[in-house]
């Protein structure tokens, strides 16, 4: 009996006296659990590990990755933030944090973190580039930066080919809907799909199929805002300017204050030397949307063509302020300064133009630069 009691006492006492596992042991166990696909164990062990040693950046990273892989986005955010705070090379984590914030509908922070990731050179695997770039584009659409969104998505289309998600994203941006795939009206689905298909095929230069889908879009949805504008953009892309002009005009009949259509018509007018009409339209667009860089740009170009270089420079300076990364605005401003005899300013703007052309690092930025109409020698 005594022996039994002693044994029980020993067993009872053995727990409190058993040594706690060291950080090194926990870290090793966590890695082993992760490698063996025991994800819940791994999450628990990494949590324990970073609790014991908060400076363990690798632990924070794996903890965040495992939670992210299980779609547990709100739980993945704190470890990612911690990793960003302590890691020596945290750049890819900004993309993951942006993705988590997207999923938890914290869209403003998501966009900020994608931009931070972009500023740091958009490092990461091909898969991360794909997924993060795609969500970044969605958020640009939601914010109304449709051209930038489409540039990113078009690059993706050329690289990866068609997919239903890409089509939907391109459709939303093409129809200038400030929505995400999760939150637009179901009755818009068909037009978004048709516009997306047309945009996709246009981006891979398959005009036959782009036209086929665009034609169907016009038949069923030609009375809706932005549809003729989109068709006009496709015609512009295909260099069919007359057809584009007609579409932009039809858009203005449906949406009299459609500044984007106004601006494109104004640009055609300026390029065709119909300066009075072009200036009137551009001025109207500027009045309606004073923060639209392209409106100021077109107005500036028109004014320069009429010899009103001082006013032109003022408009182009506003455009530059609104869109400092636009190479074509810097080029036009250089020309205005040169006309005004401000050669140093002109040289500075030309240099900026050159560096903006070269500095784009992400694939979609490179694409945007090449797809943009470059200022020709006559400008």
């Amino acid at each position, binding site marked *: 009996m005594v022996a039994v009691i002693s044994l029980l006492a020993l067993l009872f006492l053995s727990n409190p006296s058993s040594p706690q596992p060291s950080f090194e042991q926990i870290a090793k166990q966590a890695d082993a659990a992760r490698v063996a696909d025991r*994800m*819940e164990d791994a*999450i628990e062990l990494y949590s324990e590990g970073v609790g014991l040693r908060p400076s363990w950046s690798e632990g924070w990273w794996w903890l965040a990755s495992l939670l992210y892989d*299980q*779609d*547990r986005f*709100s739980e993945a955010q704190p470890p990612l933030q911690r990793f960003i705070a302590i890691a020596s090379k945290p750049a890819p984590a900004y993309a993951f944090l942006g993705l988590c914030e997207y999923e938890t509908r914290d869209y403003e922070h998501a966009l900020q973190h994608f931009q931070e990731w972009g500023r740091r050179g958009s490092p990461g695997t091909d898969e991360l580039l794909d997924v993060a770039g795609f969500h970044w584009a969605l958020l640009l659409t939601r914010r109304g930066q449709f051209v930038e969104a489409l540039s990113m998505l078009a690059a993706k289309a050329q690289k990866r080919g068609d997919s*239903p*998600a890409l089509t939907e994203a391109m459709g939303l941006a093409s129809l200038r809907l400030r929505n995400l*795939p*999760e*939150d637009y009206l*179901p*009755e818009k*689905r*068909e037009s978004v*799909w048709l516009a997306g298909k047309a945009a996709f095929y246009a981006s891979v230069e398959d005009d*036959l*199929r782009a036209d*086929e889908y665009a034609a*169907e879009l016009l*038949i*069923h949805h030609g009375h809706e805002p932005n549809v003729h504008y989109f068709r006009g953009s496709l015609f512009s892309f295909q260099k069919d300017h007359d057809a584009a002009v007609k579409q932009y005009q039809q858009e203005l009949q449906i949406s009299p204050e459609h500044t984007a259509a106004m601006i494109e018509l104004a640009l055609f007018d300026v390029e065709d030397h119909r300066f009075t009409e072009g200036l009137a339209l551009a001025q109207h667009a500027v009045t309606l949307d004073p923060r639209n860089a392209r409106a100021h740009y077109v107005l500036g170009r028109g004014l320069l063509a009429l010899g009103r270089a001082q006013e032109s420079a003022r408009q182009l300076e506003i455009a530059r302020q609104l869109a400092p990364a636009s190479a074509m605005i810097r080029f036009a401003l250089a020309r205005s300064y040169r006309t005004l005899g401000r050669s140093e300013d002109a040289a500075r703007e030309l240099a900026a133009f050159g560096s903006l052309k070269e500095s784009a690092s992400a694939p979609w930025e490179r694409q945007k630069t090449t797809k943009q109409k470059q200022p020709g020698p006559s400008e």
Partner: protein
Amino acid sequence: MGAAENDEAEAAGTIGVMVPAVTLPFLLLLLGLSGAVLASQRAGPAAAKIPSTPGKAATFNQVSEAADRARTENRDDDAIRLYQQALHLRPAWKEGLWYLSTLLYEKERYPAARDLLRRFVSHEQGAGPAWAMLGLSEFQTREYTRSLDHLLRAMALGMDNRKDLAQSVFYFVAVLRTRFEQFDESMSLLMAMVKSGQPSDLLIEPIGLAALRRPLLPSEVPPNRRDMIHLAGQGALALEAQDREGADRLLSKMVAAYPDEPGVHFLYGAFLLDVRPTEGMAEMQREMEISPSSVPARLRLAEEYLKQSNLDQALPLADQALRLEPHRATAHMIMGEVLVAKDSLEGAIRELETAEQEAPQTVRIRWDLLRAYAAAGRSGDAQREKEEIAKLNRPAAER
């Protein structure tokens, strides 16, 4: 159709489920489901763990018991609050995660239900019904890609013989496959559901959408074309029921009412090719006028010309289809069949092997390859194909 799709159709056909519970009260579904799933989980090791601090254990036990009581007494709001408290004390409590998520789903609080289900499945990776509920929640939050992935996972794992849940899952998989432009896979699943004896009224629109190759959910159909979708669905159902007269009447009515709509002439033409081939071919030509890049119309026409041994007409159509969709297995298959007919065995085998890579589960491609290998004197390869065909013809569970 790939392996997964074959299996899906097979699963839908064998389960003998009733009409999908698209709008059926999920309340009933969930209440029934909860008990079944948890009966097995209560005995699980994780549920038996007690926290080492006595005071904390008492608190958790009290709260969790109160939560269960509130749930069984249908005091849902109290139950939700209490489950939340209990999960705060013990975040990995599986029963709590499950019951709270189902209560929230019932209350149409889908994002909250979804987040809890994600936690639940991270503990219970093999729980088919939980993946099903997660996929259904994600459908409601319009995360369609994830929803489809998780519903397919539920189908693969099985749903504990919950026919009501299974029928919902099959329905949502089918409509999502259509939205993701997987029309053939969707149609196979929908027809398997019909064959299993389900009343077809709820399936008419999904079938119509898949048949006309419109990537829309039923809720996204434009009102001015709902009738067209209905006619297509009814026509396809009549065809499935071997009611040729009915199919002809419905599909010709659709063509007359919507003569310029993409997909309409293809669908009617596909029917006519079996009964009045000349008219069917004319419908396919009309489809190509309306949809100049239609690959399905080209392939059906090429197939028909092949049947007539008119290889000079078949070849360019197959070639055009391949240019339009270089990764489409059926385009490579038809091209392979045309080349076999032209005795160009080397090219034919190349095309058929490509088709096989794209769609390894398609028996017709395997048969084509078997014949081509045999004709080329490659008896070993032919034998391998024969074995693969035998394997594919077995029920999925026996493969």
